[in-house]
């Protein structure tokens, strides 16, 4: 039995486009324990979604896995055939997408869509599948599930559709759920309901959850571990407390400083200067160096390696090669 449910080692997913190579995911490492909740945070284009898709091996050309391993239960996902993968997708690992308006098929009732998953992965009778679907809808908090089973997606609101998608993803009791910005399209009052429910269901079923989002505050509410990504790399990883209360990488610090907060009233925010570099034209050394306050000549030339500054708290910055601070 493997120690970790998921181990990602030096994952590199590149996209070979006409304009050049986009290193969407460039040497990502992380480990995830069974029953844990991992938050992946970063701005748009930092490779957090592609990391999620890579775990399900859902990368289409021109995308390619250049190197690395994704060990799920000790087995390398990247070595598996398409046939094997279709037994894993939606069964052992399931995914919740960002946009609840487009991730359901508008031509099928939601009952059919939930039962389809059950029919593919398992050998239940029609009757059992229907009962299970009703039970799932009840679990995610949809009122009068028996009759709503025959409704089409357009008859549901955004929040309700996201609940249906969560029901589908839970249908096969997966070991791992990857939620890619599950509540970005929803209002805050609905967001808090959905995230709360998702957390409870994951804990109850003893599944694990990877929550991919740009909202640091949201992640900090439910995740035990957080990884922060920038330009396809993990710049800092650690427990929630490490990242939120003891951020060390200049990017993580900058990110936390630029969020307006409810609990204090600063007159001015301290934004990170500059902007995210184009993926075709990444800097040579540290990817964050051109925007960094503490950038030195070394940062511009060589890429930093991850350093463990406390147990489980890893930072990818030259400042910590030897003991130092910004």
């Amino acid at each position: 039995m493997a120690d970790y449910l998921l181990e990602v080692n030096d994952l590199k997913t590149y996209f070979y486009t006409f304009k050049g190579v986009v290193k969407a995911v460039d040497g990502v490492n992380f480990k995830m324990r069974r029953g844990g909740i991992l938050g992946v945070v970063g701005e748009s284009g930092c490779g957090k979604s592609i990391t999620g898709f890579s775990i399900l091996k859902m990368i289409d050309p021109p995308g390619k896995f250049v190197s690395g391993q994704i060990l799920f239960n000790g087995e390398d996902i990247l070595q598996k055939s398409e046939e094997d993968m279709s037994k894993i997708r939606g069964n052992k690992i399931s995914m919740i997408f960002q946009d609840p308006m487009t991730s359901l098929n508008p031509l099928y009732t939601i009952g059919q869509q939930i039962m389809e998953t059950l029919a593919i992965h398992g050998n239940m009778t029609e009757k059992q599948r229907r009962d299970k679907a009703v039970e799932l809808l009840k679990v995610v908090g949809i009122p009068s599930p028996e009759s709503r089973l025959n409704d089409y997606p357009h008859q549901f609101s955004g929040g309700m559709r996201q609940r249906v998608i969560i029901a589908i993803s839970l249908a096969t009791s997966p070991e791992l759920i990857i939620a890619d910005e599950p509540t970005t399209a929803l209002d805050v009052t609905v967001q808090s309901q959905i995230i709360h429910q998702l957390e409870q269901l994951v804990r109850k079923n003893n599944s694990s959850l990877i929550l991919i989002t740009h909202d640091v505050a949201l992640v900090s509410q439910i995740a035990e571990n957080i990884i922060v990504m920038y330009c396809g790399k993990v710049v800092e990883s650690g427990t929630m407390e490490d990242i939120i209360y003891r951020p060390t990488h200049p990017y993580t610090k900058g990110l936390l400083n630029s969020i307006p907060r409810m609990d204090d009233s600063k007159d001015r925010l301290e934004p990170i200067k500059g902007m995210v570099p184009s993926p075709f034209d990444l800097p040579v050394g540290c990817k964050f160096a051109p925007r960094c306050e503490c950038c030195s000549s070394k940062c511009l030339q060589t890429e930093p390696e991850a350093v463990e500054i406390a147990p489980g708290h890893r930072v990818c910055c030259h400042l910590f090669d030897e003991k130092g601070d910004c």
Partner: protein
Amino acid sequence: MSDNLVEVKNLTKVFPIKQGLFSGHFGKPKQFVHAVNNVSFHIKQGEVFSLVGESGCGKSTTARTIIRLHDPDGGSIHFGGVDITHLGEKEMYPFRRRMQMIFQNPYSSLNPRYTIRNIISEPILFHKLAANKKEADEKALEILNNIGLRPEQADRYPHQFSGGQRQRISIARALALNPEFIIADEPVSALDVSIQAQILNLLLDIKDEYNLSYLFIAHNLAVVKHISDRVGIMYLGHIVEVGNKNTIFKHPLHPYTNALFASIPVLGQKMKDPAITGDTPSTPIDLPSGCCFRKRCAFAQKICAEVVPELKEYEPGHQAACHFVEKGGC
């Protein structure tokens, strides 16, 4: 005259729903979307007033009606002491110069076929703020410089800029006319957090520099708390609570405001039980009787279904529309 730059009284906007081929031209529409209902507020000179609410609560429609992109169906709008509720298109021109708008999506609010120079100098020429093209050009470059873009970028097209830069260009276009009042409709929602902070700082800087007042529309409460002086909370086309930033955030009165605040994720805090059940209401075709919030309110009683609560003042400048606030609140 009062120092209110903008005064909105009992503003109402309904949109008819056209059904079938002929009803639009011949028949009378039977159903209406009640987007804005009896909304009243004022914005003082030099103030940032924010409207907050979930999607579909009518905040954008309110803003667009104030700037007369929609014609109001009831109520009045005063700008600088002048009633602009029923002014004609031509009569609106001088007011359009004085009130400008920044839109949410920087990818669709700039003309892709115009260079940045043209985008910014076009309104200057239209409103005859410059004698000739050259003068308009100089003005455009000066503004570009002020909002943090380089003059050599002036001849590029919008697609050559990132989201944050495009939002800067939108701001420059609004500033080009020396407006007194800017409506910013979700100006940072489409941007990444690190860029969002830059734009918020810029908006605050130019406010002092150009002596502006803002109507700021957002759904992100942390952003609103950061930028506003006063805040109005909207639900289903009604303002349910309005007050100074500090009082409203410290001491919210309306149950909806409470629920909204409790739903915001706070950095480093464990998830709490959801403060509110039920979904965001869909398009308000039939408004509920009585209080607009009663269907999701945990404290709803008989009176809430029967009587529409009025906005009442509980502290100086702090008003809420709920039957139960005075009885110790909820």
